[in-house]
Every structure is written in structure tokens, then in C-alpha cells.
């Protein structure tokens, strides 16, 4: 069901944990739907992401996408991090099953939410960043099957 890369990031997730005094924290998702992601960013004065940690409640794909997303933004400027899309996360994982695509959206949203928190705390505006939705499932509808 999952690619080798997804399994690798699920089995050996990178950057799991918390940061004390993070520059920004973002939590997205919804326990009702079975996935919550939290990303902690440590951003220096040059707006470079020095460290990143995550915690995720969710399926294998949710853990793997969080792990990959943290890898993709680590060491990057906040503007580069903003460009890390869910597609980039999926590609880096060699793809996800269709029902798990929302996990990659969640990872993108979690990064954006942490950047938003950083921007708010520092009173700055990050060009191109809009207030993230806290729950990506709002737009999803149950499919009927018959």
C-alpha cells in the first residue's frame, strides 16, 4: 500500500519531538477525523529555519508526510519553506495512495500554521502566507458509494 520511502519515514521518523521556546508552532487537523499534526519551528534572525520538530496523531501516511515535510523545510529560509507544497512532500515520498493525499495537505498546512504563528509573534508579514485553516477536512465531503 505504501512506498518504501513512506515506510522508511513512518518507521524512522525524522525530527520527532518538541522544541522549548519555539519561534512558531502550528497545530492542524482534527482528532475526529483521525489526524492531528503539530510542527515546531526554530527560526533565526536571518529567517532561516534552524530546527524543526513534529508530533503527529494519525495513520502511517500522516506520520511519514510530517517527517518528510520537516526534512524539506529544515535549513531553509521561511520563504523557501512556504514553497514546500503538499505535492513536493508527496513526490519526495514517491507518492501516496489516493485516500492519503489529504495527509500531505495536512503537512503543508502545519508548516504554514507554524510560520503564521512565527509571523504573528514577531509582528511581521510573510508575503504569500495566508491564515491557515485549522481543519483541512472542512472542505472534504463524504463520498457515497453504491
Amino acid at each position: 500500500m505504501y512506498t518504501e520511502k513512506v515506510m522508511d519515514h513512518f518507521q524512522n521518523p525524522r525530527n520527532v519531538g518538541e522544541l522549548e521556546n519555539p519561534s512558531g508552532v502550528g497545530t492542524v487537523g482534527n482528532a475526529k477525523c483521525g489526524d492531528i499534526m503539530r510542527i515546531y519551528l526554530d527560526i533565526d534572525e536571518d529567517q532561516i529555519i534552524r530546527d524543526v520538530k513534529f508530533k503527529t496523531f494519525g495513520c502511517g501516511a500522516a506520520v511519514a508526510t510530517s517527517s518528510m515535510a520537516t526534512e524539506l523545510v529544515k535549513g531553509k529560509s521561511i520563504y523557501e519553506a512556504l514553497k514546500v507544497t503538499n505535492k513536493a512532500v508527496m513526490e519526495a515520498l514517491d507518492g501516496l495512495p489516493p485516500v492519503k493525499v489529504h495527509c500531505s495537505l495536512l503537512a503543508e498546512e502545519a508548516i504554514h500554521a507554524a510560520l503564521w504563528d512565527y509571523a504573528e509573534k514577531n509582528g511581521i508579514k510573510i508575503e504569500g502566507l495566508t491564515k491557515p485553516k485549522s481543519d483541512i477536512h472542512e472542505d472534504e465531503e463524504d463520498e457515497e458509494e453504491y
Partner: protein
Amino acid sequence: MEKLIYLDNAATTKTAPEVVEAMLPYFTEYYGNPSSVYGFAAGNKEVITRQRETIAEIIGAEANEIYFTAGGSESDNWALKATAECYENKGRHIITTKIEHHAILHTAEYLEKKGFEVTYLDVDEKGLVDLEQLRAAIRPDTILISVMFANNEIGTIQPIKEIGEIAQEHGILFHTDAVQAFCQVPINVDECHIDMLSASGHKINGPKGIGFLYIRKGVKIRSFVHGGAQERKRRAGTENVPGIVGLGTAAKRAAESMEERTKKEVELRDYFINRILTEIPYSRLNGHESKRLPNNTNFSFQFIEGESLLIMLDMKGICGSSGSACTSGSLDPSHVLLAIGLPHEIAHGSLRLTLSEETTKEDLDYTADVLKEIVEHLRKMSPLYEDFQKKQKK
């Protein structure tokens, strides 16, 4: 990978070698069509009759009340759709429960679209139907009550005899989906006033693709599959002779070993449940402690999600299943776990492990040890657990 520990016997079971052995000649030697005239095929008709007798005896029925089908889902579909069709002049109301298998629930929804009314009974926190609610749901136009004998996810065994009595008092047909219960708990269709009963071969170490529907003599439901005179003209199609032999052999075997096997399974089950609940904090047992299938365990572990748990168990050679949404491809967790009142996030963290006759104490000890580690590992990764711990400290 180490030894495989298969704890998903509610999903399907290993076909017993002696069952396969009994089936084999009916592929290559006695392959004749039972409906044919010549002597070569005549034996096949007899062998089918013998299987029918075997199965009838197990549930206290007559042989001509057993109709072979392609499995539990077909039996459930047949019972509901054909009853609806044949009794719609009497009424268009059906009573079932919220925790039925989808073979019942989706069929009931289909009938609703055709203009039938369906009452879905609630269950309590252990998964039991409330008999008073059942009585209150009965109307003059109620034509069928369908309540599963035992639940496939949480293992709860319903008060089938009492439900049958209520149905009989009111002159309403009573169907039970006994796919999980057949050969796991003693069943007598007369004592329980069952009019129709669905069962399947592959849950009792028999082959897949074969099952039966018991239809009490006098119940007027018609054919579900048209095209031939097989199964007393009620289910057309050349008989699946090897499958029927497999089902009969498996049923005989499982019925004979039932008492001893389930006694051993109950002991192991309760030992395992006790280990999990005492050794893993924030865990709970779903379903009833004693009114429970002998081989069923179902737990919820707070703060973690079921699919991750299953993948990690798989990596340790353990096969289980979960009521998590992620395993079903929808966003909602198991309808059964929601019906017993679990909040979504706890339902997502559920795990069903179901034993077989081959499961040993060593298997379960290993599983409990592994499970402890995995739950701890996933909790360390969980933002819900982090929040919970922070709250505890305050």
C-alpha cells in the same frame, strides 16, 4: 520477519488441511454436475445432501431448510431483500440495529430507497440491544426483525432467544446474521425462534465463497438468483460442490471441537485482555466482558491512531485489524464503536485481535509485549498525548 502471528480470525481463517483434502476430489475426480442424469454425477447430489444434513443438525434445523449461497453477504442480502419483496403487502417496516455488518446495513439502506422504513436500534455501551426499545419499535406493519447473533468487531453476543421470543409474540419474521457466531456459540433455531440465519464457511476454517441461509419451513421468501431448479428452486446456479463439501466438513469439525476449543479460547482471551488492561495505561476493552465471542478482543488505546498501530504490529509479524477510519478509506471510524458511544478520537485508536484454535499463550504474551512498546512509541509521537501530559502537570 519472525513467525507470523495471525490474530485476525474474525476477518477470515486458515482453511483446515482436512477440509482442503475433503474438497480436492470434487475438483478433479467427481466434477460432474449434480443435476445431470448419469451415474457419474449422481454421487454429487448425495454428497450435497449429506452436507446439508450435517449443517442442519448443528443448528437444530431440517436439511431442506438449509440453502447454500456464496457466503454471508449473499445470505444477508437474500434474507432482507426477499423478505421485503414477499411481505410488502403486510407492511414495509423493518427493524435492525446500528451495529450490523454492512451486508445488512447497506441492504437496509437500499430498501429505504425503495420505500421501506427501517428502524435502527441503539445498543448500550457494551453493544447490547435494549429489548424494551425493540418492543417499542414494533409496529403493525413491521415485517422483519434482523439482529446479528454476535458482532464482528466487538464480539458482543445478543440476547437472541429473547429477541426471537418477542418476534414470535408479534408474528414477525426474525433473521439473524450468525456469520461470527456459527460454530463459536451453540445455536438452536427452534429454541431461539429464528426464522432465517446467515452463516459463512471461511470464518470456521472452511473455504471462502460458500455459506448458507437457513430458511424456516413456511417462510415464503422467493428466489434471489433465477435460472435453475437448484436449492429447491430458491437459488439457481450449479452447486459449488467442492465449496459445499468444504463448508460441511469445516462445520462438522468446528461443531465437534466447539466446547473444548472455545473453553481454551476464552481462557486465553481473558488472560490477554487482563494483561493489556493492566499493563497499558489509558486502554479500554470494547464490548461485553462475558457476553462475548470466545475468540474476540477489541481495545482502544487513547492518544494513538489504529492504522499506525496495525502497520507497526505487521512489522513485528502480528496481523490484526482496526476500526480506524484510515483502514476503511473514509473519514469516519467504525460505526460499531461510535454506536457504543466512543468519541471519534478513541474509536480511531482501536484494535481488534481475534484468536484461532492455533493461538498459544506464547503468541499472546509476545503480542502483549510488542503492543506495549508500540503504544508507548506512538504516544511519544502524539500531540494529543503531549497535551494530555501537560494538563496532568497543571
